[in-house]
């Protein structure tokens, strides 16, 4: 279970970043005031335009960066102060996190299994299962630099899941993947959900969210504009699909979004 309350994240901008924005302010509030809860056995979707604050929210959740205000609780562990325990609970995937392309899938996966303190036998077991599921097995001894984009992404998913975490946070997991690979990923997420895992994904692909998520939060400019099941969101916006609901909310909020 994940509980986020009044999360706020403000970045101090470097001189260069400061000069790059028009109003020359020293701070950038990427996430303003966000609260939501994700249950076990649930896939929760964060939907928002570029620069809405999705990745920032998820980075705070993964303890990579520290929230400016608010609290985060993951399966009973307090966000940053119990970072080590939180990280044991979760898998985090985002496109800025990369694997060293010098090594092979097998070595890389084992390396991360070991950092998670897993016994060798368990690592092998998990690795073989995940490699088989995602079709990495034939490439287990190929240098990562020689893998296709899709295969690299699948390997990243394998590595993030090696320790069989209870909480799965995937930031745009299907971006850049062809529909076959994308389907393999979404299918696996459904499988994990049915195992009772807590799952958050972020995406700007409405059809992915519609098909996959039990509940959705639409986030713009660092705030949640609407949250609930698909039906609840349709009811709120008076639309019958996520695309139109999204634009309805976007226009209502004045159409501003910081990119």
């Amino acid at each position, binding site marked *: 279970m994940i509980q986020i309350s009044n999360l706020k994240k403000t970045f*101090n901008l*470097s001189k260069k*970043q400061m000069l790059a924005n028009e109003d020359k302010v020293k701070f950038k509030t990427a996430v303003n005031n966000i609260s939501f809860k994700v249950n076990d056995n649930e896939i929760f979707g964060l939907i928002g335009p570029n620069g809405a604050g999705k990745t920032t929210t998820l*980075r705070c959740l*993964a303890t*990579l*960066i*520290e929230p400016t205000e608010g609290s985060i609780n993951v399966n009973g562990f307090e966000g940053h102060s119990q970072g*080590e*325990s939180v*990280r*044991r609970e979760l898998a*985090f995937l985002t496109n*800025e*996190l*990369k*694997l*060293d392309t010098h090594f092979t899938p097998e070595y890389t996966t084992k390396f*991360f299994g070991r*950092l*998670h*303190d897993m016994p060798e036998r368990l690592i092998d077991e998990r690795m073989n299962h995940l490699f088989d599921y995602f079709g990495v097995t034939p490439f287990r001894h190929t240098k990562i630099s020689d893998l296709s984009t899709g295969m690299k992404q699948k390997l990243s998913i394998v*590595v*993030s899941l090696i320790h069989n975490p209870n909480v799965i946070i995937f930031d745009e997991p299907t971006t850049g993947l062809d529909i076959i690979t994308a389907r393999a990923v979404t299918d696996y997420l459904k499988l994990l959900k049915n195992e009772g895992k807590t799952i958050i994904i972020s995406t700007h692909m409405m059809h992915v969210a519609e098909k996959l998520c039990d509940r959705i939060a639409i986030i713009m400019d660092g705030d949640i504009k609407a949250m609930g099941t698909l039906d609840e969101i349709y009811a709120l916006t008076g639309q019958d699909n996520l695309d139109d609901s999204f634009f309805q909310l976007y226009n209502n909020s004045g159409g501003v979004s910081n990119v």
Partner: protein
Amino acid sequence: MFKSLMIITKKELRRVFTDKRLVITSFVLPMLSIALIYSMMGYMIQRSQDDIEAHVSKVIGSSIPIAVIDMMDADESIEFIPGAFDKNTAKELILEETYDYYIYFDPEFEDKLMAFESGPLPVIEGAYSPKSDQSMNANYKMRTLLEEYRQTILAERIGDASYLQVYDLVTSSIEIPQENQGIDRGIANLVPMLVSIFIFAGAMSIGIDSIAGEKERGTIATMLLTPVDRGVIIGGKVISLSVVALISMVSSFIGVMISIPFSAGFLSASGAFEMSQMSLGGFDFLMFFISMIGLVGMYVTIISVLSMIANSVKEAGAYITPAYMMVMIAGFMNMFGSGTVSSMSYYIPIYNNLVNMQQVLLGDGDLGRVMISFVTSSVITIVLLSLSRNLMHKEKVMFPS
């Protein structure tokens, strides 16, 4: 085609000249560093030259003809110290650098000189210490002086041009006692600088890649997701870098040693050093390695901290270049240093290790001084290590955007 060529050329030049960092690293820094290093070198060489020239050579000897004593007195750069010294005491005093040169004339020198038409040539012996620049310089001055002396004698023998030979001059470098013989002076001056530069260069290329490179490529962030403490991650990197630096340290040291049979001709001060003449014991090597390890610790942590602050490999290169220059300057200062080392030097980081290495090689290593330098280096290493650990927790450092 020509138009496209121009468009591409312009874009490339624009790329370079609008990137402040590239301009600095490719144009400004090389210019400054070459200017700085060459001036430093020139200055240091000049200074040690001046030191040697300004030094008044102290000469001792026995049975010296009055004429030669007069010539020495007339030369302001030579001071003759009268006294009776037997050969062995004299040589010891020269090794201790109390005096610079010992000259010994055949007791029957003047008689033999007079009897030049019949008897054997009289002998002059000179002795200097190959460990001292001052002594070697005194040797050079005395040769010149004796040559002048020969000319005056020849002038007295006008008409007897067939007797051009006046005396036999035998100069020898003093045998240095086994326990502090060390290695040739020229080699001892050069090796610390070379080893130091190789250690830095070896750790630099790999350190930049493993820290700034991993940051740039996003692979270090993946590790931050594991339960492992961030300090442990940087710790592992520093240890592996140290191993790399230790290997390049050992290999560069071995490289220098292997080259001695071939390089001694131009490296060695006497021009004739052979490996068999080297007499460094296990304890000397231990002191040498302690000094090198001090360097390794500092270099690795300096490189780590600078690579962490940088957001890209390119940036790291720009930050580390000045540090590299400092390392080179410390090396040159040591190489061309005038030999006299003030006690303060043992507290100057980096330089102190170099001085110790040099002295160990000369057979004058001192464990106390080696340890002072080692402790100084360790303190700096630990400070930089904890700094890099703190940087790991800094959001601006780890996730600049």
